[in-house]
């Protein structure tokens, strides 16, 4: 029900905002956190992480077969090599979609997500519905997301239960032979790298 509220007049929402402001002020008053550090954290994740990073990884894999092999074999090293690293991406694995297999990423126990390459997750990824249903009925979820797979395509759901973070390597769309990496990267969507969309 909180989703249906007018957030500005939601007492739950106001309580949360007050709670956070009190904590922030207290941490600064105690000298535990420098105020600028919080701005740095927000700016870093909003501006320097996000699906544009992942899209570069995908575009390079589409363009360079050797990189693709490396990426699928040693995800962390291949991603670090493009300059993406950090918390919630220390150990990366990239799983490739094909005509035979479609991959979907979830974290049923909390909301683990590969921050360096995809940024912070969208709220629906953290929803009870996505966490609960994705492992039991991934085909039904894909249908909700508008992805219709042939019955022959197996669906693999990766539940991020330990410290490995997962990213999907979507299939390269047909008719993109002439595109360079930048143009290819522009085709890649966040949901394509979670597995809730095709590209």
């Amino acid at each position, binding site marked *: 029900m*909180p*989703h249906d509220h007018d957030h500005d007049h939601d007492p*739950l*929402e106001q309580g*949360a905002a007050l709670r*956070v*402001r*009190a*904590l*922030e*002020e*207290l*941490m600064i008053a*105690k000298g*535990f*956190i*420098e105020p*600028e*550090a*919080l*701005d740095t*954290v*927000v700016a870093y*994740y909003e501006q320097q992480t996000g699906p544009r990073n992942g899209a570069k990884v995908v575009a390079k894999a589409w363009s360079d077969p050797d990189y693709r092999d490396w990426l699928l074999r040693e995800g962390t090293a291949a991603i670090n090599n493009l300059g993406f*690293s*950090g*918390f919630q991406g*220390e*150990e990366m694995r990239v799983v490739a979609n094909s005509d035979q297999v479609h991959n979907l990423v979830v974290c*049923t*126990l*909390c909301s683990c997500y590969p921050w360096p390459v995809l*940024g*912070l*997750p*969208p*709220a*629906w990824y953290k*929803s*009870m*519905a*996505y*966490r*609960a249903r994705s*492992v*039991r*009925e991934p*085909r039904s*979820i894909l249908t909700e997301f508008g992805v219709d797979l042939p*019955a*022959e*395509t*197996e*669906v693999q*759901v990766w*539940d*991020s*239960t*330990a*410290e490995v973070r997962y990213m999907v390597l979507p299939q390269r769309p047909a008719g993109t032979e002439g595109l360079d990496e930048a143009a290819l990267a522009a085709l890649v969507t966040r949901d394509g790298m979670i597995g809730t969309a095709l590209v």
Partner: protein
Amino acid sequence: MDGIHDMGGMHGFGPIPRDQDYTFRAEWQRRAFAVTEALGGVVPFSADTHRQAMERIPAHEYLTRDYFEKWVIAASQLLLEAGLVSEEELRDGKKRFDAELKDGGEKIVAEGLVEVLRAGMPLMFPDEKREPRFAVGQKVLVLNNHPSGHTRSPRYLRGRIGVIERQVGVMQFADTMAASENPAPQHCYTVAFEGQEVWGQDAEPGTRVLADLWESYLEPA
């Protein structure tokens, strides 16, 4: 802990709220995220310890409170438990006493912080002397234990048989990290489970679940 957080497979949560496509929808959520991230270095606490504190939020609040508010509730609880703040202070944000940070805790400053965020944490503990117990392709059973503490063996996989898909390597162990910040590293494996093995006759056809499970969650099947 078999809490509400362990919701893989549960019914009753309706359709995916696809319209919630934002990361933050209010400024306080940005601040909640940043202050919690910073507190991991201040208190200090690991992600596992923070997850455990989230899991201990009463179930009905877990289901209704905003995700980032839960982050802050959990971080505040860990600050309290470390003796760095009082409940009174948390209520109004006004400092009542000064506290010394503990060993390992440090003031979080902007300078050099991006480098820390880019570096992340060492989570793997390569150890060639430690032989993996399970080989790729081997069948394993997920032990049916129900610890009251933090665990990353989800209920829906316990008692189920899967196949080792990959040896992930020697990794810090979530259960001991959450209990006492002790990495107690052990081998971790990606294990593949057929949908029917997990959900029985109610499985969708042609589906598999893969999960990363530590060695002590498993035994040969």
